[in-house]
């Protein structure tokens, strides 16, 4: 019986490793897509077609606050994974809820920036630069939205089913996704926002 349980445990970790690797490969293909969008943005950055340039449009302190909020949500997501390893259901729910709140705050800030730009007449139709900007940052925002929907479903399932092994695997993948989005945002912060201030 003993050897069977250890064998099962070994098999389970092996399967988890395979799932994680598959998800990792998806994340890397996603990274290629973001890479292409970054290349587009860098090429079209100067094509303003008489519209505003990047230094006139972006607000650096606002972007910094967005960055710090997303970074903190990445940290709380990590703390949720720690609690998951200790099988502490209440803490997992707590940390993931906090991650969710920070994530939705980030999304609201991003959307308010978009609506401000559009109300000033600087929508994606204004110039090549703004099209590239809205595509790049909007794609990241869509990923964040998908992550938030995923998170709320997982939270609901933890509440109903407890920390089952299939659910903890999903939560681990969700944390990978969330940390990955944070890394993509660092490059958006650097290439879009910081470079506009130079």
């Amino acid at each position, binding site marked *: 019986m003993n050897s069977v349980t250890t064998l099962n*445990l070994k098999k389970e970790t092996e399967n988890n490793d395979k799932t994680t690797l598959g998800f990792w490969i998806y994340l890397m293909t996603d990274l290629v897509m973001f890479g292409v969008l970054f290349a587009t943005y860098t090429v079209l950055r100067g094509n303003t077609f008489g519209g505003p340039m990047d230094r006139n449009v972006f607000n*650096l302190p606002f972007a910094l606050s967005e960055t*710090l909020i997303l970074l903190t949500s990445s940290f709380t997501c990590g*703390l949720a994974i720690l609690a998951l*390893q200790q099988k502490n259901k209440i803490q997992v729910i707590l940390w993931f809820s906090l991650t969710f709140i920070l994530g939705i705050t980030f999304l609201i800030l991003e959307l308010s920036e978009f609506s401000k730009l559009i109300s000033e007449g600087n929508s994606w139709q204004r110039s090549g630069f703004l099209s590239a900007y809205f595509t790049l940052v909007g794609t990241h925002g869509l990923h964040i939205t998908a992550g938030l929907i995923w998170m709320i479903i997982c939270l609901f399932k933890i509440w109903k089913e407890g920390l089952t092994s299939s659910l903890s695997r999903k939560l681990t993948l969700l944390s990978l996704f969330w940390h990955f989005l944070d890394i993509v945002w*660092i490059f958006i912060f650097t290439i879009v926002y910081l470079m506009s201030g*130079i």
Partner: protein
Amino acid sequence: MTNVIQTTDNLKENRGPKLSTYITGFASSIFLTLIPYFLVTNHIGSTYVLLTVILFFALLQMIVQLIFFLHLGRETKPRWKLAVMISFVGIILIIVGGSIWIMAHLNYSMSLLQLNNLMQYGEGF
């Protein structure tokens, strides 16, 4: 019997991340965000120096988060994740670097007169 279970438990504990890992990653990420931010807002250094420095900080933060948040360093021996990542980063470097290089060269090699001629008399691009 208990011995075996203990060893697997030990194995799990050693493989799993710790609180200190996340705190280190979080603190260094904040520093690596704030330093380039203050460099840019205070306009320290010339354009090209500043550009190189902030890109360097972004890369550094990416590595920090890969190690401390995504635990890339904790992977066991056949390092598949790392291998996949390196090959994809190669593809990204070719796409991004190639696009920027080609488009910059296009802008550089084509004079305004040539561009006007193309737009007026030719078929455009």
